[in-house]
């Protein structure tokens, strides 16, 4: 079957009110779940798997993939408005999105996130449709040494998060790496730092930690400085960014979409790592890097373009090879199996209607997401006008519910509050919290692949594997350079 025939087949599957309705429902559920801290894309999709059981396989998968793509955008809404990332990858969006809200420009933050997500999502899906099979094969060729180098490159992006104090960012990332060491050793299977507790067997769950560090910590900061005086209401502007502003960030959106898709393809990398790396690249390429962290539209676009495009990327190994590349992919694999289907090359042959139906529904889901987002932003933005005396208790309540929702365990709630205290202490002494998340997310990838590489070929592999060597060199330079610059800056100030 030729390509255009396949696409026509795909769209023909979507004809009728039922598939369109399913996509709309999927997008709405996805946006809401994404915005809700605690419901990550994988949890949101997992929650709907049982409901999709009675649907036809095509409709079920259209529903689930629509949720997947929309939830990555939904996470940005709460990140921008109340500094509470709804999804792990939106932690990067909050870096610049929340400062925009504080400046009274929430509309710009939300608008940029929406457009970057839509464009990113579309580019990711386009790459998926056009090159799924060859790309998946290339990604498989990457050895553990290459993965280690890439993960280290991701860690090096910490240098762009210090807001002038790289050493404090470094301390925060080390803390994140230490947290990641808790739980079962991924290579030897021995328990580490679990103190005999089953709860710690899998380590701390990312989402409660994330909610604690970002949202609960803010509540504590407010409690400390509480005066009881009603906040002077700043004017909240729901104006979208102007066309000129979009034109200025179009390269950032395009770049971050390509980065997001490519990183999404690698099994085990995913949306959060994509957002961090893309943010770092955007800052380095920017004409106004000093704006980053203070409400840069480029920063928001870089994070959202990357995390939404990573969805298309992550579907590449799943659909082309039957290998789940992300946590959400693993859930989708299960959904396929529930319907007696196995994703992989044979699915293209045996059920092209399903494969191309999913492809086309993803294109449509992006468009619907844009429309719903444009309409919904007007309502979302009202959240900012909620009085503080109601807002902060509400954030705390959402944090508790959200961390409980992850796996229905009170331990996660306690962990969330604990991380809230840690986040509060970090903020009190001027340490950034985003690098902690980076450390938790990348720590596992760095450690596992380093040990695998050494077990397979010994330490020399990092010098003999060309790709790994080059990437390691780049990461070393991109890490050391800002350190050197800040040291020079410091010296100049003293002298």
């Amino acid at each position, binding site marked *: 079957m030729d390509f255009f025939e396949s696409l026509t087949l795909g769209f023909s599957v979507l004809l009728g009110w039922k598939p369109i309705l399913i996509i709309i429902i999927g997008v709405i559920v996805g946006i809401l779940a994404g915005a809700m801290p605690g419901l990550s894309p*994988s*949890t949101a*999709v*997992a*929650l709907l*798997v*049982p409901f999709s*059981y009675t649907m036809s396989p095509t409709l079920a998968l259209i529903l689930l993939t629509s949720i997947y793509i929309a939830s990555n955008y939904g996470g940005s809404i709460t990140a921008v408005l109340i500094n509470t990332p709804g999804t792990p990858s939106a932690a990067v969006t909050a870096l610049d999105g929340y400062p925009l809200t504080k400046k009274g420009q929430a509309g710009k933050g939300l608008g940029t996130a929406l457009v970057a997500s839509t464009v990113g999502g579309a580019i990711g899906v386009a790459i998926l449709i056009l090159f799924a099979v060859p790309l998946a094969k290339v990604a*498989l*060729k*990457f*050895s*553990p040494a290459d993965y280690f180098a890439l993960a280290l490159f991701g860690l090096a992006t910490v240098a762009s998060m210090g807001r002038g104090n790289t050493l404090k960012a470094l301390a925060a990332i080390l803390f994140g790496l230490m947290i990641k060491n808790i739980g*079962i*050793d*991924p*290579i*030897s*299977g*021995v*328990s580490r730092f679990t103190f005999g507790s*089953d709860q710690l*067997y*899998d380590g701390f769950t990312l989402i409660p930690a994330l909610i604690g560090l970002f949202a609960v910590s803010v509540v504590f900061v407010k409690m400390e400085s509480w005066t009881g005086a009603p906040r002077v209401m700043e004017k909240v502007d729901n104006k979208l960014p102007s066309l000129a502003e979009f034109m200025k960030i179009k390269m950032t959106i395009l770049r971050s979409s390509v980065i997001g898709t490519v990183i999404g393809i690698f*099994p*085990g990398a995913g949306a959060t790592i994509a957002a961090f790396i893309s943010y770092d690249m955007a800052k380095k390429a920017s004409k106004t890097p000093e704006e980053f962290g203070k409400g840069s539209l480029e920063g928001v676009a870089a994070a959202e373009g990357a995390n939404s495009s990573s969805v298309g990327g992550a579907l590449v*190994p799943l659909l082309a*090879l*039957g*290998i*789940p590349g992300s946590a959400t992919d*693993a*859930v*989708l*694999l*299960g*959904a396929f*199996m*529930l319907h*007696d289907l*196995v*994703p*992989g*090359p*044979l*699915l293209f042959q045996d059920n092209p209607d399903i494969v191309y139906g999913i492809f086309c529904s993803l294109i449509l889901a992006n468009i619907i997401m844009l429309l719903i987002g444009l309409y919904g932003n007007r309502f979302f933005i009202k959240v900012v006008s909620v009085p503080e005396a109601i807002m902060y208790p509400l954030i705390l309540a959402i944090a508790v519910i959200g961390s409980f929702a992850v*796996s*229905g*365990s009170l331990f996660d709630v306690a962990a969330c509050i604990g991380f809230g205290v840690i986040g509060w202490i970090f903020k009190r002494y001027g340490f950034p919290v985003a690098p902690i998340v980076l450390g938790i997310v990348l720590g*596992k990838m760095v450690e*596992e692949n380093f040990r*695998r590489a050494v*077990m*397979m070929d010994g330490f020399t592999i990092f010098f003999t594997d060309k790709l790994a060597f080059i990437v390691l060199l780049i990461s070393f330079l991109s890490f050391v350079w800002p350190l050197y610059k800040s040291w020079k800056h410091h010296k100049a100030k003293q002298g």
Partner: protein
Amino acid sequence: MKKNILALLVAAAMLTGLISTAQAAFPEKPIKLIVYTKPGGAIDVFARKFTAVAAKHTDATFVVVNKSGAGGIVAIKYILNQKADGYKIAAVTRSNIGKIVSIGGKIDTNEINWMGLMVVDPEAVITNRKAKVNTWDQLVADAKAKKGKQIWVGPAAGGNDHIMAMKTWKAAGIEAKWIPYAGGGKSMAALMGGHGIAYVGNPQDVIGRPDLKVAAIASPKRLGGEFANVPTFEELGVKGLNNEIMWRGFMSKKGIPAEAEAFYLDLLNKVNNDPEWKAYIEKGGASPVMMGAEEFAAVVEKDKKEFTRALKSLGVLK
């Protein structure tokens, strides 16, 4: 005479009443079926398929509840902390036994009612069809040439698959290296990418993945269907690997009411004989079976011993 007939009728009515209440006594409310992975995991799919087939044979309602964490320990502990009323059961696999052993005696397997073992899945050595080394004989020759440096990929050390790999190496008289990946999916990706020579899994792993093939299977005789060409270890001259299995089944807490026990025994037998269930299980190269509590408990004991021995030799257990 009239009185007698009346008495007889009353007695008969009471008796049928008794019988019908005895039959209706279980279940009176929905049954929670606990799954130890998040929705979409292999065992979750298995549990949901079970409830769909069971619905044909009983009016009882099953609600699948996912309680993930610590490789099944969270789910099993949940069951053991509830009342033994028969309304909470869990789907279990052989890897749960490995986890129970590896956390060191904190769960007493004697407190568990091993209700029924329903699927046996033969263990298999899987290779990359496109690699130079892809048949069992090539694999053995390559391993001998590489002198212990041949790479096998799979989930974490000390798990089901790793232990099967070590057994295989011993039986075949070869040495190799185990490089762990985070789960079966990523291990198969590594095998497809040519980073390892072999993966230990089950025949169903190659379905839909034409790059992978089953090189040898640890069952007493060949499987049917698309696996008819796969040789058994016995045929390949490797002794002692003709009955290595991965099993799936159901458990509850010990001491559930007798009528609940009877209900489950009857239901599991009915599902086991259901053609839809049979087709679902056999499609993946596995076999539907029905082992009751005693037989199942014996399998668990045997597995516990094997895991204990293996984990001690690896240094995970002291």
